[in-house]
């Protein structure tokens, strides 16, 4: 593994280290995974534009990535990215955002960009909670989970982002987690090379705001839970609905 991290350091503004992420945050893994995918794709980094909104995940590219970054208002990165991509189609445009940014306040832009099959790669870091603002419930928070605004357990069902975006018309749709780094990197590579709307939901971990209020307060425990609870699309085909309760299906859904 030695040398792997070194290979992506040239894409990072290391002068801004340390990152602002909490100890145990999953977003650092995703920060690296995206750069590995860029590196392995052989893309000219100066022609890659990263657009992000408000929230912890918005800080993955901005200011860390050493190329053009556009850090915008809450929920709107997909719409900003649409303008940049339409005016300069030569740019590879990647949107990185959290579940609140992309799927709650930005939900309308998400489904319409998918419907248009806009040539963007959207990576949604889903930690199931509003981390930056103090751990409030998100539209991705599981039923029963405790958050700052659901102290007795969440009453609402969460969005299944993969099914939502696939139904809206996206032409590459996948879900992985920050535990499943190698397939995640391969998926991001595919998304970067795909022409059309690519969407990858990346299950991430927030021990600070989510884990500590629920069953698994430790970073490593949250990562182990991702390992245990995720099943691949292929394996899920052989499981009954009862066996799939509490499991998250990962893999490629469209494309």
């Amino acid at each position: 593994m030695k040398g792997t991290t070194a290979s992506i350091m040239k894409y990072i503004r290391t002068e801004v280290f340390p990152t602002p992420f909490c100890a145990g945050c999953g977003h650092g893994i995703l920060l690296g995974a995206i750069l590995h995918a860029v590196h392995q794709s052989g893309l000219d980094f100066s022609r890659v534009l990263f657009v992000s909104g408000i929230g912890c995940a918005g800080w993955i590219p901005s200011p860390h990535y050493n190329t053009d970054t556009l850090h915008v208002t809450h929920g709107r990165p997909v719409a900003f990215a649409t303008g940049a991509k339409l005016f300069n189609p030569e740019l590879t445009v990647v949107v990185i955002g959290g579940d609140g940014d992309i799927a709650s306040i930005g939900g309308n832009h998400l489904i319409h960009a998918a419907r248009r099959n806009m040539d963007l790669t959207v990576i949604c870091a889903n930690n199931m909670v509003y981390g930056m603002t103090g751990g409030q419930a998100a539209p991705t928070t599981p039923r029963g989970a405790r958050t700052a605004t659901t102290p007795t357990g969440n009453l609402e069902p969460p969005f299944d982002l993969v099914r939502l975006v696939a139904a809206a018309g996206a032409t590459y749709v996948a879900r992985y987690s920050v535990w499943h780094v190698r397939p995640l990197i391969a998926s991001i590579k595919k998304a970067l090379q795909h022409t059309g709307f690519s969407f990858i939901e990346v299950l991430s971990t927030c021990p600070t705001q989510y884990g500590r209020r629920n069953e698994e307060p430790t970073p490593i425990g949250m990562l182990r839970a991702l390992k245990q609870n995720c099943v691949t699309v292929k394996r899920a085909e052989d499981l009954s609905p009862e066996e799939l309760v509490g499991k998250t299906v990962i893999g490629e859904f469209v494309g």
Partner: protein
Amino acid sequence: MGPRYKTRDAGRSGEAELTEQSGWTKVPSELEPGRYFMQGDEACAEGAIAAGCNYYAGYPITPANEIMERVCQRFMQLAGRVFIQMEDEIGSIASVIGASWAGARAMTATSGPGLSLMLENIGYAIITETPCVVVDVQRAGPSTGQATRPAQGDVMQARWGAHGDHEMVVISPWSVQEVYDEAIHAFNLAERFRVPVILLMDEGVGHLRENMEVPAETPVYRRSKDSSRPPFGEAEVPPMPAFGEGARLLVTGSTHDAWGYRRTSSPQAQEQLLERLASKILNHRHEIARTHTHLCDEDDLDVLLVAYGFTARSALAAVRLARAAGIKAGLLRLTTLWPFPDEIVERVSARARLVMVPEMNRGQVLREVRRVMQHAVGYNKTNGEVITPLEIWQAMQKELAL
């Protein structure tokens, strides 16, 4: 009506001075030069196209639809111009800002309800110094109000709608000709000062049809793209490279330093940024502000009307009625509403016994006029109908106790 009258510029003429500076060129107008019979909304689209607008994102709304439809049809005839109908007004202004950073001369158009939705991202354009033009064809509000009726109720929304302390450039044309001319001016101000510019039309001007002239050439200001200088500081108006040019731009709506690094808890960074964002407009308010006097002799004036937009047309007719009755009346017409031309209003109104501000709202510009001329009075109408010349003339007579 409007363009037939000879006008005298009461402010300093900005354009002549600006053409001396780098960044200015003249390009052939996209339309054949000559006279056209055109609608205000269509003239807005044509002015934008003449100014080099090459990105338009919009969402349908009355009474601004004709701008988007005209742009859509005309862009299909022209190379290198991008049109998209977005999912809502928030997406429209967001994609306009994204396109502007990709190098576009970008624009959107809407009415009051859509402007309300755009305001957060207009604030983003202010703090990131993103050139763009936002057209608001005002209609009667608040909320859905009366979608097809004229009003001038968005003057303060245009000024203060985006949260946080900031300056704005807002232009309010009175004729189809001026819509065309000021759409061009709006683009050039946006590019020159790296600001969002609001072209504040109203339903009356937007749906008006009259003659206008297209000149052979259009003055165009192009932004500096020097990537060796910081894009968010040092210079009063810093250079703005585009995405994909290797400038490694860090663009953020958070408070930032000259190179774009977030400085979210530094009092100095916040103060310096806000100071520069304000002063780059205020230091140039004389060249930004456009006002016109009509039938107005400042040194021998009893009654001064201060008006803008469609209402200025009725005000000029009212001045004629007053002059026919032997009253020394004149009109000061504000084409630029923000930054408010305080000094010009103060100078022109200095000797007037009566200063009256007719407007289709409850006194939004009147309050500004009163800051410099305390005895100014308003004539206000908010029933979704335009103010007529006779109404202003009668209000004038009442104030003068004739």
